[in-house]
């Protein structure tokens, strides 16, 4: 029990450190400057004829990431299928 309490205190201390680091990133809710995101918000609709800015980023501006993400899902499917395949054994 005592050990667990000590762990909790340690965790809170380290979490506080991370909190401190995050506070120095920028205050919550007030990003200091966001040139890239403002560019998307202002121009994506015109450039790519799309209403949903997030989709514009996911499939156009950062489309290659999404290809990679689809590849990760495909990888997981392949791995699960390989794990639970019906063993052919020695052909």
């Amino acid at each position, binding site marked *: 029990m005592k050990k667990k309490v000590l762990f909790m205190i340690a965790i809170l201390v380290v979490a506080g450190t991370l909190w401190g680091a995050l506070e120095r990133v920028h205050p919550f809710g007030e990003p200091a400057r966001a040139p890239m995101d403002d560019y998307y918000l202002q121009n994506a*609709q*015109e*450039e*790519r*004829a*799309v*209403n*949903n800015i*997030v*989709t*514009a980023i*996911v*499939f*156009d501006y950062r*489309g*290659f990431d*999404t*290809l990679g*993400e*689809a590849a990760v*899902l*495909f990888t*997981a*499917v392949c791995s*699960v*299928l390989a*794990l*639970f395949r*019906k*063993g*052919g*054994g*020695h052909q």
Partner: protein
Amino acid sequence: MKPLSVVVRTICDIFMWFMAVYGAYIIIHGHITPGGGFQGGAVVATLIAFMLVSHGGEKMVSFVRTGMYSAAETTGLLLFICAGFFGIATTFFYNFLAKQGGLFGSTVPLGANSGVLNSSGTIALMNMGVGLEVIGGLSLIIYFMFRGIRLHVETGSEETGHDR
């Protein structure tokens, strides 16, 4: 898994098709409303999970044709990467359909509007590709993980490398 009561089964039989249609809606309208291929695909793939929970494993295993889902997955992925390859006249992944007037080629008014379905170029195409892939992939994961529970009963052959 054992089947649940008749009430649950009936409700599920009806509502899982609504789920499928709703998922398809999310996929197709990915460039207009919140959502997209992944989200819609995940919604459609819950159909298999519904089936597994309500009707039990036997029914699900007999219902699912893995070949079909594999085909959907591969088709979706190839559609996605080919949509990228077709743009290579400019750059790989170039959105060659947007604002060209043809398929998915109309423009949208700026600012808040009610949305144009036939817009956004390859974005819509890729949404559909990813949607197909996610439907196939997640259904296959659910199916194979369920079948994995019983795998040791089904198979006797071992694949342990070259030494045993």
